[in-house]
């Protein structure tokens, strides 16, 4: 009898132990400090609040609570790698490096460790080729597709003809900033526009030379691949030389509230690309208010809700949660591993019904990830800033990129990477 009681007690303890231990570990590489904190804070708040909402409202994902492991990188690549090394042992299911530099460093490490990376709209563009990059995903879109969407938008604006027009690219002089150049060069050949490239060195506090050059050359349109203070200064300088804001389009990392507020009314009409919905007109924000903010559980001061970058990581968190659900469904277990998570990401199917169920109807395009395509469809919209109301609004539907050009570039770059690293192609 005694033995039976001891056995039962042990079994209960073990069961209880495993129940406590079952959790979904998601590291978050935040940067709430340093020169890029202005962007890092809303990004961190959105991701954290989404999972707090799931934990509070639903008890986690399919009843399994999510544990976020925060690690501060200060947007510094070395610190990002340290964060990865120090957190991967905690059962990390997926990394969102939030930096192209960190992503590049983590690709070989995470691949060797079997942990998936999701670099949503940043990182290595050619990682969209799942045949080469087994563990890296950059759905729903990437930089090259962004460049193509911007050009397609300008084609629409010009009756389908850009020949003879000049498009200037003002870019952060880094791996990130240089990403769209190749695509734009290809597209300029295809559509006959002139491309002018203007590099801005980190951090971008001083851009007088670049904007004097733009004033001299008078391009028809300016595209911007910037981040941090570079964005604010560029928009101010554009206003200073009276460049028409409606002809100035930033990538989605150059189109947040913080980028336009310093320029005040002068920023009115500035445009940026978007990969997800803008504003607070989605039911999920009511739930965040009720279950997160009102309970005093918001990651920050609760003042970032509905801002562009907050929404961006709400979307990233939603995609991660859906991938987790898919992984649980595929493998028939709630106790998933990073490998299972990878499978879930590769089989991810985002439908309008799923977005609506999450309180995010129409928040992004529908798409499906596959073994070959880790990058999604690459759809992007254009948003525009209204300085009088202090709001961004989507002014287009989600538009398709030029897949003919982009897919060829992705294939070429990823195959070169595969050859360089002796990677055996998969998905056969």
């Amino acid at each position, binding site marked *: 009898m005694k033995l039976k009681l001891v056995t039962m007690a042990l079994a209960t303890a073990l069961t209880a132990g495993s129940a406590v231990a079952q959790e979904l570990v998601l590291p978050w590489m935040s940067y*709430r*400090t*340093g*020169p*890029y*904190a*202005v962007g890092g*804070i809303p990004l961190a708040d959105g991701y954290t609040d989404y999972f707090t909402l799931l934990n509070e409202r639903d008890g986690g994902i399919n009843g399994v609570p999510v544990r976020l492991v925060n690690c501060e990188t200060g947007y510094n690549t070395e610190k990002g790698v340290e964060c990865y090394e120090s957190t991967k042992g905690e059962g990390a299911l997926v990394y969102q490096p939030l930096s192209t530099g960190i992503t590049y460093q983590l690709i070989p490490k995470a691949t060797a460790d079997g942990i998936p990376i999701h670099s949503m709209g940043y990182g290595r563009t050619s990682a969209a080729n799942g045949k080469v990059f087994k563990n890296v995903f950059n759905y729903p879109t990437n930089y090259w597709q962004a460049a193509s969407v911007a050009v397609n938008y300008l084609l629409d604006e010009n009756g389908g003809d850009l020949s003879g027009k000049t498009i200037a690219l003002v870019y952060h*002089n880094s791996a990130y900033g240089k990403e769209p150049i190749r695509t734009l060069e290809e597209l300029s050949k295809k559509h006959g526009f002139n491309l002018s*490239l*203007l*590099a*801005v*060195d*980190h*951090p971008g*506090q*001083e851009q*007088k*030379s*670049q904007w*004097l*050059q733009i*004033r*001299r050359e008078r391009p028809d349109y300016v595209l911007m691949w910037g981040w*941090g*203070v570079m964005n*604010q*200064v560029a928009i*101010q300088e554009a*206003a*200073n*030389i*009276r460049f028409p804001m409606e002809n100035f389009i930033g990538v989605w990392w150059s189109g947040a509230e*913080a980028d336009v*507020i*310093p320029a*005040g009314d*002068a920023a009115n009409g500035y445009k940026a690309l978007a990969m997800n919905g803008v504003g607070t007109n989605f039911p999920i924000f009511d739930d965040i208010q009720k279950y997160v903010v009102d309970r*005093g559980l918001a990651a920050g*001061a609760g*003042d970032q809700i509905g801002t562009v970058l907050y929404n961006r990581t709400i979307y990233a968190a939603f995609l991660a949660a859906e991938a987790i659900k898919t992984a649980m469904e595929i493998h028939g277990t709630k106790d998933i591993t990073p490998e299972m998570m990878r499978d879930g990401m590769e089989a991810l199917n985002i439908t309008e019904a799923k977005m609506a169920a999450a309180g995010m109807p129409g928040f992004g395009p529908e798409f499906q990830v596959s073994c070959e395509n880790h990058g999604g469809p690459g759809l992007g919209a254009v948003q525009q800033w209204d300085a009088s109301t202090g709001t961004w609004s989507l002014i287009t539907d989600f538009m398709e990129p030029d897949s003919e050009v982009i897919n060829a570039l992705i294939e070429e770059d990823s195959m070169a990477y595969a050859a360089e690293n002796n990677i055996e192609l998969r998905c056969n």
Partner: protein
Amino acid sequence: MPDQVLFAMEAAINGLMAGVLYALVALGFVLIFKSSGIFNYAQGVFALFAALTLVGIMEGQVPFQHLINAIFGTELHGFGWETPAILAVVLTVGVMVVLAIAVERLILRHLVNQPDIILFMATIGLAYFMEGFGDLMWGADIKKLDVGLPQGGSFWIEENTAWLGGDGFYGFFIDRLDIVATIAAAILVIGLTAFSQFTKQGRALRAVADDHQAALSVGISLRFIWVLVWSIAGIVALVAGIMWGSKSGVQFSLSLIALKALPVLMLGGFTSIPGAIVGGLIIGMGEKLFEFLIGAPFLGGATENWFAYVLALLFLVFRPQGLFGDKIIERV
């Protein structure tokens, strides 16, 4: 006149204007180094902190409100009033003076007679502390700074110089904010020169700069001088913070403007106020002209950051003490 020549002139003029902004940052370094031999690594953060404080006071923000809300569960957002820019500037100057007193009391006083490298390391610590302190006090979100300074190209200059060139020349572009910065820098230099030449404290400051021991022996209080000079450097940082913050908004990358001051210091010398100004002008004009003539057309652009250092190094080779720096002669 050929348009290319006019464009080069425009680049040079804008370079001079940018140089003034660099010089404003460099001035703070020079003041402290001249009087105490300390290379104040925290000068860029001082500019950031001063600008944060100015905006916080103008907007009626409650200092440490996020911290207070987190600890006490309150929902403080602000005092509910806005402070006029002039009054906010005066109050910010007061805060910078208090900061100078705190630096002297809590750091410098305990490091008297320590090697220069220790003092330098202390300012590195101070920089990181101030950045975190500023974050806690005012928050890390971007803030629009509007003290009523004009911005944007001057129509008048554009219209009255457009006739100089052909159809492709639209007149010289000169940012009105840069003109204001130039005037502010001129007033600062004149004021600092007058202060050091014609006031008792200014003479004491120069005496300390020349020889600490001798100054002490005639009864000059080193501690007072340190508070004085760190206060002045704080005021200079405020001016730099206003000018740079008006361009980009007040945010934490503002502290990186110190990077633009280093080549100016190398060129102008660490101990000369006119050196900081002239150094700034040379660096500003040199980097903009290089970018216009060589960088953008032949090297893919973005040459300004490194070219400024190349230019400074070239000067260093021939004048290691900088253009206006004191030549150190040690007799054995």
